[in-house]
């Protein structure tokens, strides 16, 4: 049978809808797989092939032992409410095979749906009826359609009875539409609700693109379809329609970053480019209605945008009255963190750190200016433009390119997907800023605990790692961080190489266990290791290394610097191995890839050694000499990666 559930609500916040649908996909519909859809005003579950009823089943109820007699059996039958003839002696006991009839699915769903609907987890819920003990949901539930075949599944939530009446678009549709499962989606469409999110998304994309294409000079330009904005618009509309709006080209004198932020974040408009990287004086707004018959919507949106742009221009002009450099003292009044002082204190730390990191004078100047935009009107209004605004102001105020560029990009990378600053000055200022935040917070006990990370220190640490690796900066890791912060950064290093760069976890562990000089060096060693990993000799050799480690551990061998005594070496595999190792040390191969290849090529000698030579020799001198040989071998092999960390086919996956 076909199943339809529509939970009709007041407008649900767009970003919560996907998770709610995901939870509804786990609704128990007796083996039928549900399909899901949603608009801001409705969550919809549909399924076909829902069984009409659950199958009958049999339950065996054990009664008294046969030895208790027929009277006891009759009593048992009476208690079970059956005729005594149904109670049968089996295996020493009386027993009743009870037939439990299956239930109608409609009855089961009528019972289970209210609780299942109210069990949806939302980031924040409300109550709206029945006082504080009333049901909680994301927004008030106003209607429910619940159908199985042509029957209504009867239940009630928050005083709303389920039925077969849905509602259309708030302005364009009817507020009372009887539906069947078959005509549900088409009836909604007749009432200006496009149920399918995919269809709404494509409608927005197509119409927004068409609006922009008309004004673009190059075919690759036009409407910039921001994916996050597209998703938002898909879930704040039931009947999206794109319209083009225009603004005075004079506003194009404002930086594109500011214009785009106003359009995208404040007004939910798509920006339009006339040629690559050049904004056109147009935007695309997406209405939640079918048309703009008198052009009033276009006019209204243009008016709002004009006011916003005027504000931005006002902020820009006002802010120019006080240069960035003159705002440094004002930062004393902006708290960075109660225990760590003001942004002025922070700025001083960052400047010092940039100096310590051998940053150029430009980098030090950028460090001094980088937080000054926090006191500007523009950043107070558009907080997500911090840094960018500072950079633009520094440029307008005649700072040299390396300085303003560094200020502009010193918050990057904002996330794992974001790229690092492009310029050396930007890299060093960003590194110093983040490192200072981390050091400061760790020094006053504000390290993240569990999932709590109010100062976004994980993100800062991730940025530090990304910059050090991708800019191939030459700082020794141990000089950047010690103690808990070092451990915290190592976690982020592991995360970065595993999740962002796709190295296997044991490769990352092996390389880190061999020590860290610079992170660029870690990257080189990982690349070399990952390349050698699939070759035939590598994993067996790694297994041998593990064996050597265990032997040394069992023998409690402490390398005491004693040289290998060649006269104690047995001719054959032992002497061959020692000779080969000596040659390897002499060659001193520094290229990681070649060195690993040469190490892997030791495999036959190592295998032969273990095959033919008894490490645990009766003569203590010979034994000690063999252990020394193995210890030397292991330490020569472990300069790039500690192979004993490599998980080989013989290991259990950790």
């Amino acid at each position, binding site marked *: 049978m076909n199943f339809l559930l529509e939970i009709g609500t007041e407008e649900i916040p767009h970003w919560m809808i996907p998770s709610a649908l995901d939870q509804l996909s786990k609704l128990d519909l007796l083996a039928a797989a549900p399909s899901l859809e949603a608009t801001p005003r409705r969550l919809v579950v549909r399924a076909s092939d829902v069984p009409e009823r659950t199958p009958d089943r049999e339950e065996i109820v054990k009664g008294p032992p046969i030895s208790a007699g027929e009277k006891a059996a009759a009593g048992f039958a009476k208690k079970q409410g059956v005729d005594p003839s149904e109670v049968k002696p089996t295996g020493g006991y009386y027993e009743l095979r009870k037939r439990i009839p299956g239930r109608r699915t409609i009855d089961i769903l009528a019972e289970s749906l209210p609780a299942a609907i109210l069990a949806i987890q939302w980031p924040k819920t409300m109550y*709206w009826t029945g006082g504080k003990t009333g049901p909680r949901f994301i927004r008030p539930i106003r209607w429910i359609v619940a159908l199985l075949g042509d029957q209504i599944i009867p239940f009630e939530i928050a005083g709303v009875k389920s039925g077969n009446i849905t509602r259309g678009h708030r302005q364009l549709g009817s507020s009372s539409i009887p539906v069947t499962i078959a005509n549900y989606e088409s009836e909604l469409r007749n009432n200006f609700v496009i149920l399918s999110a995919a269809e709404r998304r494509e409608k927005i994309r197509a119409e927004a693109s068409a609006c922009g294409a008309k004004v673009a000079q190059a075919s690759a330009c036009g409407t910039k379809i921001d994916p996050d904005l597209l998703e938002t618009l898909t879930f704040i509309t039931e009947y999206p329609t794109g319209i083009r709006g225009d603004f005075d080209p004079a506003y194009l004198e404002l930086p594109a970053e500011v214009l785009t932020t106003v359009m995208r974040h404040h007004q939910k408009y798509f920006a339009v480019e006339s040629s690559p990287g050049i904004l056109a004086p147009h935007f695309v707004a997406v209405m939640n*209605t079918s048309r703009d018959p*008198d052009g009033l919507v276009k006019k209204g949106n243009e008016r709002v945008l004009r006011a916003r742009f005027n504000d931005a221009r006002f902020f820009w002009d006002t802010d120019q009255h006080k240069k960035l450099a003159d705002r440094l003292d004002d930062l004393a009044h902006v708290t960075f963190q109660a225990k760590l002082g003001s942004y002025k204190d922070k700025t001083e730390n960052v400047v010092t750190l940039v100096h310590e990191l051998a940053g150029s004078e430009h980098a030090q100047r950028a460090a001094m200016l980088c937080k000054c935009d926090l006191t500007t009107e523009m950043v107070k209004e558009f907080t997500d433009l911090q840094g960018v605004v500072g950079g633009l102001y520094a440029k307008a105020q005649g700072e040299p390119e390396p300085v303003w560029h560094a200020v502009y990009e010193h918050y990057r990378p904002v996330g794992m997907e974001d790229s690092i600053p492009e310029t050396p000055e930007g890299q060093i200022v960003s590194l110093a800023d983040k490192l200072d935040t981390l050091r400061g917070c760790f020094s006053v006990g504000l390290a993240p605990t569990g999932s709590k990370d109010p100062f976004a220190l994980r993100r800062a640490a991730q940025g530090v790692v990304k910059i050090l690796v991708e800019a191939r900066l030459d700082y020794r890791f141990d000089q950047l961080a010690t103690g808990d912060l070092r451990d915290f950064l190592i976690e982020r290093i592991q995360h970065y190489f595993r999740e962002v760069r796709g190295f296997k976890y044991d490769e990352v562990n092996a390389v880190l266990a061999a020590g860290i000089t610079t992170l660029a060096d870690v990257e080189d060693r990982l690349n070399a290791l990952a390349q050698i990993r699939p070759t035939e000799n590598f994993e067996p050799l790694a297994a041998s290394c593990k064996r050597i480690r265990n032997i040394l551990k069992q023998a409690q061998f402490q390398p005491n610097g004693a040289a290998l005594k060649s006269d104690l070496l047995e001719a054959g595999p032992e002497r061959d191995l020692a000779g080969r190792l000596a040659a390897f040390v002499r060659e001193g191969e520094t290229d990681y890839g070649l060195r690993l290849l040469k190490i892997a090529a030791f495999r036959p000698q190592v295998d032969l050694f273990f095959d033919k030579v008894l490490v645990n020799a009766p003569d203590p001198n010979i034994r000690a000499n063999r252990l020394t040989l193995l210890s030397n071998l292991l330490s020569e092999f472990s300069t790039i990666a500690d192979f004993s960390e490599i998980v080989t086919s013989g290991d259990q996956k950790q």
Partner: protein
Amino acid sequence: MTDNFQETVFKLKRYWADRGCIIQEPYDVEVGAGTMCPETYLRVLGPKPYRVAYVQPSRRPADGRYGENPNRLYKHQQLQVILKPSPDDVLDQYLASLEAIGIDLLKHDIKFEEDNWEAPTLGAWGIGWQVMLDGLEITQFTYFQQCGGMDLDLVPAEITYGLERISAFLQGVESVYDIQWAPGFKYSDVRLADEVEFSKYNFELANVDRLWRLFAEHEAECKELLAAKVPLPAYDQVLKCSHLFNLLDARGAISVTERVGVIKRVRDLAVGVARLWIDSAATEPRPLGSGLEAA
């Protein structure tokens, strides 16, 4: 013909009067928002239904722009509607109120965008939306959940219309100062001097030391009135403290670290008043009802 400012206000008041609201006049102590008036803050508490609408001039000292910004005002006018409990068709009623002031919904774009409201100094918060009309925020809609730190018995709907924005929209003017208030009078004729002088006062002239002293005096007065168990006079003192807090804030006299502490001082008073109101409402008969049945 397009309505002037006061006609729009008359129509909204008429609309809500026809739906069972008491039409109140503005409260006569400075407030930052219509929510802070006792008609909202206290009446939403307790089990009795209430319906009220009023225009409230709302003072936000930090928002003043010396009359130079076309959209930002130190004092703006809100039309505040409280429907307790919230009727099931409350959003439809709200949309019809827009029709009543001449907005043809078939020719405009309306969106309800998530915007939850919170007033830390009042221990109050709610769930709701900002209502967007052709990309312009014209209304804040909130289902109150807590007030004075207490869960509410009957969830009220609060509808707060931004009257200047709506009027500027209806009249198609770019600056609030160009709004026609009454025949022959523009918004600037009525209010510009106010904006200029109060911006000067709020940002430059207000005596910070004296404001702190006044804050302490009103706080002390409030505590005595709470002890005397008179919630309404005590609440006026809360509003005084709240306004002084906003003034000190505009003067940049409250550091980030102090801020939390001062907010807590105001909230403790506000919560005290709310508790007292609930407790005394239980023992003394009060004209709380409006003849509407509780849902």
